[in-house]
């Protein structure tokens, strides 16, 4: 039955997602003459993605568990509208094996991997074992059965220095000890054991290689139902805050051709090991750079990634089209030999958050919204002027993706585009992003995954600058036009940009 559906391709697709990714998928469907069905919650009734779809089905209340995470409602909507396929996007139900299985049971094409792949990659321990069997490098580590000092020290010697000792039962950094030389091991083991026993009632220790200042480098993979598995090179996503990515780029400036090729092959091996199908991403930690760099498998994201446009720009492919092609049972539209990287792409995630206030998420109505345009500039967004940004979902408003012949050209293009990206009504991270992209370490491409957690507050403080007098002149004119009573303003402090303790500062006296 599923095979028959696949043979005739997808005719009507339900998008089990919202926001920018729903619009991204709807656009691809329009180009393929596939009808689209949107599903939405109370909070999204008037959202652009709902209006963009050919049909829309209301799922339920705003909280995701009552709408976008309710797999039964989503499948009922697909069946009620006669959809023959479901695209899960990213987040929500996209990596839930039970949902993929329910789609399969309902004879709906799930645009993604088979539920069996989701199950195998869903368990971190199971995935790690599978990767070791497939010859994919993982961070060396073990829980020795013999927990004596001698056995643990032997384990540390096996995995190499610097090593990290941590309680097997632990979490949150408690009892974690770094061992840089063999002579430090005995003291560190004793301390870790005491803390593990005191905090978790279990002194069993796990030892692993400590990867210092790693980069996050991931490989895009794609597999079809005809046995083809390819990789589409890397994306570097080291600029992340609390594991939330902020900037992604490709190529990764730290990768040599040799290491890139080895990572690509490892990612393809990983995909084959789990019988993968459709688009997926293998995340790795990268230690060092150039030919000396070493990489370690972190996890596989069994879905389309937020940052997929970076790959689309550099490799010159359309990953959503390829997803629909493969889901419809056709072979991949590209071969490994035909894929190359050209130029450099950078993606900036525009979040509704206030970096000057500890990155607190923002909610409210977008009073004015204008996206930048121009050669090499792409904006994937799910909002427009008037959109009410709620606190129920991910705070990402849009993705700015730029392409240029070189990293520096792309970076300058991103800066110019950010300066032209107007969002009024709620705070965004655009002023922060402008600072980040000019930070010496970003310019030099030496950022590791801990960089924003260490430097974020400093960069946020630097993003608060004073408004030029020209801005005050425009405000005065605006008030004059719309009668908001600004005219003869009393003297007051200058308005500051980017938000501070009291964002409500009076307008400096102005005569126009």
């Amino acid at each position, binding site marked *: 039955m599923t095979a028959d559906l696949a043979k005739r391709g997808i005719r009507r697709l339900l998008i089990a997602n919202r926001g920018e990714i729903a619009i991204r998928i709807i656009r691809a469907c329009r180009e393929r003459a596939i009808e689209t069905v949107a599903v939405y919650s109370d909070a999204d009734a008037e959202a652009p993605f709902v209006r963009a779809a050919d049909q829309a089905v209301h799922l339920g209340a705003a909280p995701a568990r009552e709408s976008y995470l309710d797999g039964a409602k989503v499948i009922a909507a697909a069946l009620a509208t006669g959809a023959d396929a479901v695209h899960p996007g990213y987040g929500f139900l996209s990596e839930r094996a039970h949902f993929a299985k329910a789609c399969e049971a309902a004879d709906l094409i799930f645009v993604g991997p088979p539920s069996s792949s989701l199950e195998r990659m869903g368990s971190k321990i199971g995935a790690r074992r599978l990767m070791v069997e497939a010859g994919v490098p993982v961070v060396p580590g073990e829980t020795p059965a013999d927990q004596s000092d001698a056995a643990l020290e032997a384990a540390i010697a096996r995995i190499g220095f610097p090593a990290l000792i941590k309680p097997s039962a632990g979490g949150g950094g408690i009892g974690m000890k770094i061992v840089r030389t063999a002579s430090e091991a005995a003291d560190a083991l004793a301390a870790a054991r005491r803390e593990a026993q005191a905090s978790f009632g279990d002194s069993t220790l796990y030892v692993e290689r400590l990867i210092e200042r790693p980069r996050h480098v991931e490989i895009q993979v794609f597999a079809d139902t005809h046995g083809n598995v390819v990789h589409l090179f890397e994306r570097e996503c080291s600029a992340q805050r609390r594991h939330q990515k902020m900037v992604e780029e490709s190529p990764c400036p730290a990768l040599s051709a040799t290491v890139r090729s080895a990572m690509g092959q490892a990612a393809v091996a990983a995909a084959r090991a789990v019988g993968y199908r459709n688009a997926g991403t293998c995340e790795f930690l990268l230690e060092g750079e150039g030919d000396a760099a070493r990489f370690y498998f972190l996890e596989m994201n069994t879905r389309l990634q937020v940052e997929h446009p970076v790959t689309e720009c550099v490799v010159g492919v359309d990953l959503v089209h390829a997803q629909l092609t493969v889901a419809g049972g056709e072979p991949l539209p590209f071969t490994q030999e035909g894929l190359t990287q050209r130029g450099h792409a950078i993606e900036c995630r525009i979040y509704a958050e206030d970096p000057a206030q*500890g*990155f*607190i*998420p923002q*909610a409210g109505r977008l*009073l*004015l919204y*204008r996206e930048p345009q121009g050669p090499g500039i792409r904006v994937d967004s799910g909002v427009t002027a008037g959109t009410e940004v709620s*606190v129920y979902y991910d*705070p990402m408003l849009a993705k700015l993706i730029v392409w240029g012949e070189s990293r520096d050209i792309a970076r300058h293009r991103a800066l110019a585009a*950010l*300066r*032209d*990206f*107007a*969002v*009024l*009504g709620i*705070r*965004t991270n*655009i*002023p922060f992003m*402008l600072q980040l992209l000019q930070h010496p370490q970003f310019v030099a491409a030496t950022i590791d995954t801990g960089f924003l957690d260490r430097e974020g507050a400093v960069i946020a403080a630097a993003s608060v*600058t004073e*408004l*030029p*007098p*020209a*801005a*005050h*002149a*425009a*405000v*005065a*004119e*605006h*008030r004059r*036009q719309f009668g*908001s*009573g*600004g005219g003869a*303003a*009393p003297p*007051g402090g200058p*308005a*500051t*940009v*980017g*938000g501070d*303790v009291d*964002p*409500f*500062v*009076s*307008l400096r006296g102005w*005569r*126009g």
Partner: protein
Amino acid sequence: MADSPVVTPLGGGWYLVDDGERRWRVAVAGDRDTQWVFVNGQVATVEAPKAIARRRGKGHDAGVMSPMPATVVALHVAPGQSVTEGETLIVLEAMKMELPIRAPRDGVVKTVACAKGDMVQPGVNLLEFE
């Protein structure tokens, strides 16, 4: 700037401002009291003088609210307590972030309408001043 800048409305909240040395494209939006202003990727809010006067007058800041659905994780004040402007009254948590709610002015707490552990919604006073 010796001369007044020339401001040309471009429509849709956009203005071209010529300060004699260079030109700026500025966007302005907002309600009667508060304007949001954009220039070169920077954003600020500017409050109208009348709104400031109103806000400072009696009757305004009669209480504090949560800006978003959140959970009360700490309550630092009780009815009858005097507080000073900027003092942390309540600590909320939303999206794994702590959010201190500070006193908007000096005053005396009249009533407290939330308790530790409560889920609170925006637009509802968490406490009121006398």
